[in-house]
């Protein structure tokens, strides 16, 4: 009898404990990308399941980074789940700012998470952020324009092919440009693309002694190629075009080719957002000399800052939002073409997804090829394909991006631009103590 009472009491206490846990409220900081908007829209399902309330804070990407950095550094504890990228995760993980996410449970099926993406978010064997959606870069092209001109896009184009196609398809009088590429300065804008171009021309940001390599022949060749093709066969005012502007240009039918994030494929393929939905073909990111790092690797991921006081509940949310079930939920409620791409193998095995997203296989191949551990042909001391995972890179990348944009707009020559970039990066690296 006594045992039963004890058991009942115990059960009572546990359920009491559970109600306390259930009344918890999580604060989630995220960006306004379409996939995150869907996550917010579907989040009542998470509440239904767990009873955990959610507060959403949606911030501009750079503000989010600054806000979250301040919060973690001052242990403010305002955020329980934060959206970060493949760039911050290794840096913050190393700083011990994030909780490790290796305990999301068996049902999470870690093996199903695409390996290069998992690697991007892993430091010293620990996963510090769970991928929400991931991308590489590849080539979008207009099947109709290629057919009209009697051209064929190979599955793996070279940059020589790309230049040939751009020359043939550039008709500025009809508002049709041979190629659209990122020109807006910024480490995550033009330098994301230029970084991959340098990689495939055989270059690297730093040698093994952290000495900047911006005046090397590989950089010169890559940037000269970039300036030449974009100036002669690109849209006017390319220095103000970032990912979004080019996406708009391509989806309104102004570009014959566009080399950019695979994550835009679902949007280009959606007739509500694009005039070229049924006319767009997809090919791998072009290569020049070597295959390493020709296409980038990026993931938007969810992480729990160490300053959060509700990390258990936060992990529950992350396990939900990055699970196979969540992908299915999005597929079934929002249409399979909108399912978050690039994170799970099972998504690409799903016949429904295959049917709705014919570009899926090319995307998967691109992501599998984006190996963050071998970003360049020559050895490098850093991780990251289109970025260098050190805190200084945001500043460095943006500064070099401005020099490259100056060369593109004709304010300086390629040599001058790279020389001034080299000097600036050397100074920063000296100040930061990487080189003497």
């Amino acid at each position, binding site marked *: 009898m006594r045992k039963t009472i004890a058991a009942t009491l115990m059960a009572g206490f546990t359920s009491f404990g559970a109600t306390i846990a259930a009344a918890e409220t999580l*604060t989630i900081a995220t960006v306004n*990308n379409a996939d995150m908007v869907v996550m917010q829209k579907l989040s009542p399902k998470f509440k239904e399941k767990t009873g955990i309330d959610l507060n959403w*804070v*949606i911030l501009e990407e750079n503000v989010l980074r600054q806000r979250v950095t*301040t919060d973690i550094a*001052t242990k403010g504890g*305002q955020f329980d789940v934060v959206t970060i990228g493949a760039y911050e995760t290794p840096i913050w993980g190393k700083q011990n700012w994030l909780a490790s996410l290796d305990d999301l449970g068996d049902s999470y099926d870690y093996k199903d998470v695409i390996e290069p993406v998992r690697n991007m978010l892993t430091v010293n064997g620990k996963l510090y952020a769970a991928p929400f959606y991931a991308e590489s870069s590849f080539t979008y092209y207009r099947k109709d324009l290629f057919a009209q001109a009697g051209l064929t896009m190979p599955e793996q184009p070279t940059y020589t092919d790309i230049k040939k196609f751009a020359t043939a398809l550039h008709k500025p009088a009809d*508002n049709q440009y041979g190629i659209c590429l990122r020109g807006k300065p910024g480490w995550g804008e033009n330098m994301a693309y230029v970084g991959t171009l340098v990689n495939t021309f055989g270059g690297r940001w730093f040698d093994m002694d952290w000495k900047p390599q911006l005046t090397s022949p590989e950089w010169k060749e890559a940037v000269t190629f970039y300036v030449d093709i974009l100036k002669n066969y690109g849209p006017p005012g390319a220095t103000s075009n970032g990912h979004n502007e080019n996406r708009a240009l391509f989806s309104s039918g102004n570009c014959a080719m566009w080399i950019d994030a695979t994550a*835009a494929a679902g*949007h280009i393929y959606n007739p509500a957002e694009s005039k070229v939905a049924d006319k767009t073909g997809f090919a791998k990111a072009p290569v020049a000399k070597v295959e390493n790092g020709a296409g980038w690797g990026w993931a938007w991921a969810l992480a729990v800052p160490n300053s959060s006081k509700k990390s258990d509940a936060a992990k529950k949310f992350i396990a939900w939002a990055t699970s196979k079930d969540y992908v299915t939920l999005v597929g079934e409620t929002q249409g399979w073409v909108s399912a978050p791409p690039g994170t799970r193998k099972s998504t690409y095995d799903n016949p429904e997804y295959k049917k709705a997203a014919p570009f899926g296989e090319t995307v998967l191949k691109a992501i599998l090829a984006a190996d963050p551990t071998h970003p360049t042909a020559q050895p490098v001391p850093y991780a990251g394909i289109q970025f260098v995972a050190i805190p200084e890179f945001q500043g460095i990348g943006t500064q070099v991006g401005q020099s490259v944009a100056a060369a593109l707009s004709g304010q300086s020559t390629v040599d001058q631009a790279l020389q001034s970039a080299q000097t600036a990066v050397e100074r920063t690296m000296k100040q930061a103590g990487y080189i003497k």
Partner: protein
Amino acid sequence: MRLKLDTHAALSLAGWLAASALFFPIAWMLLTSFKTEIEAVATTPSLIFTPTLDNYITVQERADYLKFALNSVVVSFGSTLLALALAVPAAYGMAFFPTKRTRGTLLWMLSTKMMPPVGALVPVTLVFRDLGLIDTLAGLIFVYALINLPIVVWMLYTFFREIPREILEAGRMDGATPLDELRFLLLPLSLPGLASTGLLAVILTWNEAFWSLNLTAAQAGPLTAFIASFSAPEGLFWAKLSAASTMAVAPILVFGWLSQRQLVRGLTFGAVK
């Protein structure tokens, strides 16, 4: 006579041109908010298009506009009242009982506006964290009152100086205490100045984005945080951002129009003696 008419016409033309130049960004924002995302970023922007209300609907669906707007109202009016309450006695003291340090004090107050706010971000965050003020309306009111205080003191100081000392002295002769002087003489006499200072402080607070983004999370975010949440690193957002911005500036724009007469009167108060 003829010449005079021409100058007059030229002047009003210049006035209209200046006003249109100033109003252009707002007009363009309004126009963009009725376009589709693709039209909003079209390289040859169109003036003729089929307007759509979709952006406003999407914005309203995703975020609770009223909550943000209410926060903005509470924060901007609350901080303005607090700043005025602190600044009126300070400006009174400095305007009517100046010492040789008054000028220096005024300049020093203004010098706090010369430091970029991010320089104070970490200390302010730490103090706020310890006082539990992060993401609270009280915290924002406090910070904005302090930020606007130098400007408010300066403006009130100049307005108070326009008031003839003799009037206050006469009051004193009749036995008015300093508080009575403030209440019955100074404040009524400088009402236009007070009103325009308050209006300016409200507008400055309404538009401030650095502290409102950095010190709020899910609860206390004003309309600036609401606008910022509609930009996206991947995906088109100009049309929705314009709709959100239009909704954010509309109240203060209307408020500005309604109080225009007061504002102009206040700003030119005492200009002609």
